[in-house]
């Protein structure tokens, strides 16, 4: 199964959804080369926003990947208003949309601790390094804590070397 994060990001942006990239891809962004097989974002929830997510991936056979019978997203519209997270499998890979991030709070708090970065394929908000360390520490799994050790080293190096990003 493919995992094309760039294509997913571009589709989400085109849908008009406001979001911040969190999770493993953000760890990579800040300079720690880990392998991550899903795209995690934090976004405001509610029916309208989930409809934007749906519009971004509707032609990619999106299903709720954690449901036992892999429920198609389009068959669950009645529940959109009750969702706090959406974990999807699409033809372009896994996409996890969260309404809040452990250690940081809801979308507004996450947004306030993000940075806007311009890339060749568009401008995207990424969690800043300090907030990512807080979030990974709060997540607390071994892989998160391993990432924290490396992110702390990266932070230290970037403090010493202002030319590094």
């Amino acid at each position, binding site marked *: *199964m*493919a*995992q*094309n*994060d*760039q294509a997913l990001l571009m589709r989400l942006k085109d849908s008009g959804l406001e979001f911040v990239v969190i999770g493993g*891809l953000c760890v*990579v*962004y*800040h*300079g*720690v*080369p880990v*392998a*991550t*097989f899903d795209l995690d974002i934090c976004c405001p929830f509610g029916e309208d926003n989930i409809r934007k997510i749906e519009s971004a991936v509707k032609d990619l056979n999106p299903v709720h990947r954690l449901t036992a019978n892999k429920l198609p997203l389009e068959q669950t519209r009645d529940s959109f208003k009750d969702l706090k997270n959406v974990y999807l499998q699409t033809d372009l890979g896994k996409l996890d949309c969260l309404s809040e991030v452990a250690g940081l709070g809801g979308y507004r708090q996450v947004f306030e601790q993000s940075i806007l*970065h311009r*890339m*060749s394929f568009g401008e995207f908000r*990424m969690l800043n390094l300090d907030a990512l360390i807080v979030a990974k520490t709060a997540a607390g799994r071994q892989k998160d804590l*391993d990432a924290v*050790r*490396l992110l*702390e*080293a*990266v*932070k*230290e*190096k*970037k403090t*010493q070397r202002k030319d*590094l*990003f």
Partner: protein
Amino acid sequence: MIDEETLAQMNGKYVCPPDAGPAWRAAMEYGFDMSLIEASLKLTPEQRLAEHQQAIDFMIELQESGKAHGAK
């Protein structure tokens, strides 16, 4: 004639940069390959994401190839 230190580096010994701070040294002592972090920090964030995508593509291809050949 190659000296012992150079030979050790050729065999994978990581030389901690003299300006490495406590967090860098702690991660190194924990066992992480800090040369990978050094290499990553030389890239722009977009280059890091592109490298990651290439690595993921390769790993998925390997995984699917393994499945096709009956790997468990």
